[in-house]
């Protein structure tokens, strides 16, 4: 049997739920850094990366045969958006 020390060396760490932390859930913390993050993302949004990633996810779900409705729901997109992306990737041909 592995020891806690050994188990804790795995990529996914052992973590224990602590109800005491829930009180900080709604509390704004590290606001200065949050503002810095938002400023950086406003100046240079990683749009291309986000689109590539979303397309990969759409392709992955499509290959898993998820219905278009479910893909749209999972990614918070409209069904039309999903169909357009799939068409752009050459995975479906839409009859318009």
């Amino acid at each position, binding site marked *: 049997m592995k020891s806690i020390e050994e188990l804790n*060396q795995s*990529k996914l760490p052992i*973590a224990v739920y602590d109800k005491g*932390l829930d009180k900080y*859930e709604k*509390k704004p913390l590290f606001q200065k850094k949050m503002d810095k993050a938002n400023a950086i993302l406003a100046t*240079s949004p990683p749009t291309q990366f986000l689109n590539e990633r979303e397309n990969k*996810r759409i392709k992955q779900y499509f290959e898993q045969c998820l219905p278009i409705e479910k893909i749209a729901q999972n990614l918070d997109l409209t069904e039309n958006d999903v169909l357009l992306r799939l068409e752009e990737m050459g995975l479906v041909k839409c009859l318009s």
Partner: protein
Amino acid sequence: MRNKRYQLTFSVSFTMYEFVSEGPNGRINKLVKYTESSVKNIYNLGFGDKLDDSDDFDDEVITNNKDSLRVLSTVAATVYTFTDKYPNAIVFATGSTDARTRLYRMGISNNLEEIKEDFEVLGRIEDKWERFEKNRDYDAFLLTRKIMVK
């Protein structure tokens, strides 16, 4: 990052983590919080020390508890747990000071091969994002779980 880590606790939503740093300056409670930014699915990684006898945290204090590598490994471990729970989340990280940003950059560089097994890593340089490469002077980072497609 397979260095020694501290034991973690997490909140109900898996967005907050706490651990205790131990060193010459005593036991110091550390908190990691993931907060959604102004961009959908991008979460800021906030991290700091609990201030004595209060519910406040400071992310600019220099603890100097001689365990920075262990602390960094523990924070990195929270990225695994958080993105395991939220696979679509993208983690934004930058230091509260230039020195801390350098420490993050070093931590990523030194463990890049292992990190890249599971994550895509981007760095920002001259206002542009690119795939993370060693020896580049990035001022912010994005980490996200890899998506496996055929």
